[in-house]
């Protein structure tokens, strides 16, 4: 057995947490002379450090995630029996057959007439779905469904449809703005909301600004609220933005968000008495840090 093979065995035991202490000194002495083993030990050390530096999850954050999961589980459970009942009652296939025959249904009252291309795609999908699994895996998801029999052996359907699309659009396209705004308003992962926020920052027009302000007020993630503040930097002359910043300074549960709001507010001419009032209004931990920071900002020319 070569020297390295023996010491590599020791490294294997070190990684597995069962290297006897008396072997450690011998291993370290060998590593002084052997570059290969030294590199292995260095990688082991870096991994130990990386693991030790990994953040502990915040219990409140985990509680929040858990609540969201339970809500989603309940929502899915609520949908399942409805779908199963509809299928069991033999409703789906008559509808599909009717649709395949190309009988166009009247547009939903009060809504937009469905695009014929979208309806065509729905027909094609329904025709290609052979069994329950296909329907479950369909790229179209139907919700908020109502059925009404109409003369001529037909059925009036009223439903929402969601699907997944990929498209390349000009960055100023109204569609891009609407998609971004909905990403901020609707439930999605924190990562997705942050991504949407970073895109939104470069495209702030009134609609998107309102969506960003909504996130600043309502998003449960501190990271997203901070990203909203960063996105608003170019809109500080807007009255709505300034009053939202003042509200964040006064009401936000995070000191970080309050501090960032303070920095933005103080970067424009504003009555500092109002800022002081907002900080003190709810008497919370962090108020003192905010007052110190305000005093710092006031001292600067």
């Amino acid at each position, binding site marked *: 057995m070569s020297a390295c093979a023996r010491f590599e065995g020791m490294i294997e035991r070190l*990684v597995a947490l069962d290297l006897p202490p008396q072997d450690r000194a011998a291993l370290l002495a060998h590593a002084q002379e052997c570059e290969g083993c030294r590199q292995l030990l260095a*990688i082991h050390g870096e991994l130990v450090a*990386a693991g030790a530096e990994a953040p502990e999850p915040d219990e409140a954050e985990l509680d929040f995630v858990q609540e969201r999961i339970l809500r989603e589980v309940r929502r899915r459970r609520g949908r399942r029996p409805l779908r199963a009942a509809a299928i069991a009652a033999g409703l789906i296939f008559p509808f599909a057959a009717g649709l395949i025959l190309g009988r166009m249904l009247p547009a939903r009252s009060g809504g937009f007439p469905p695009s014929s291309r979208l309806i065509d795609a729905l027909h094609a999908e329904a025709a290609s779905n052979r069994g329950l699994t296909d329907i479950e895996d369909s790229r179209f998801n139907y919700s908020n469904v109502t059925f009404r029999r109409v003369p001529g052996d037909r059925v009036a359907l009223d439903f929402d449809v969601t699907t997944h699309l990929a498209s390349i659009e000009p960055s100023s396209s109204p569609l891009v703005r609407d998609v971004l705004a909905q990403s901020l308003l609707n439930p999605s992962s*924190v990562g997705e909301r942050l991504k949407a926020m970073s895109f939104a920052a470069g495209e702030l027009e009134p609609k998107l600004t309102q969506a960003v302000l909504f996130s600043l007020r309502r998003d449960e993630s501190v990271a997203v609220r901070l990203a909203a503040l960063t996105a608003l930097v170019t809109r500080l002359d807007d009255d709505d933005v300034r009053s939202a910043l003042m509200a964040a300074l006064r009401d936000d549960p995070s000191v970080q968000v309050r501090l960032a709001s303070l920095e933005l507010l103080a970067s424009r001419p504003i009555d500092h008495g109002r800022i002081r009032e907002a900080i003190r209004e709810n008497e919370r931990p962090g108020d003192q840090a905010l007052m110190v920071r305000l005093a710092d900002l006031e001292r600067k020319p």
Partner: protein
Amino acid sequence: MEPTDQELLASIEAGSDLAFDRLMRRYRRLVFRVAYGFTGDRESALDVVQETFLRVHTRLPGFRGEGQLRNWIVRIAANEAMNQNRSSSRFETTALDESVFLRPDMSEESDPVVRATTERALTKSLAALGPRYRLAIVMRYFGERSTREIAGALECSEGTARNVLFRGLAKLRTMMSETEESRR
């Protein structure tokens, strides 16, 4: 007394949200740490926690109860974390094959793109490791799991798990040396 995993599973199958809540509470920190080891990002790790438990709930009826529930959950978490790092395509990210951790690893040899783009940083080299090695290393260093638990997640003997850990380290060394040389 705390209910066992099996008791919780039975209650969840009977429709108990309380039991699922307890199950999540039992494993959520482990899932977070494994997810963080794969993603290196706190927010992404929280997203992985969410997706993992949703996936666990959906797939529980198919869980055969062979092997421990914890190992199964860890593999799902690792899969979700790797999916998150891949393309954002909806259809790619919904694919689930936790058996990828149970197969001999060849991905880093067979994926020249991954090899070519591997940078010196340890985290990037780690990302280029095959799933089996990666899971072992993440469980050991980020999940602070014993070799026995790693063996359970990989469905192998403890001896094999030790060997996977060591070879994972050796592969990281090789990748980092190659990247270093290509920079010179």
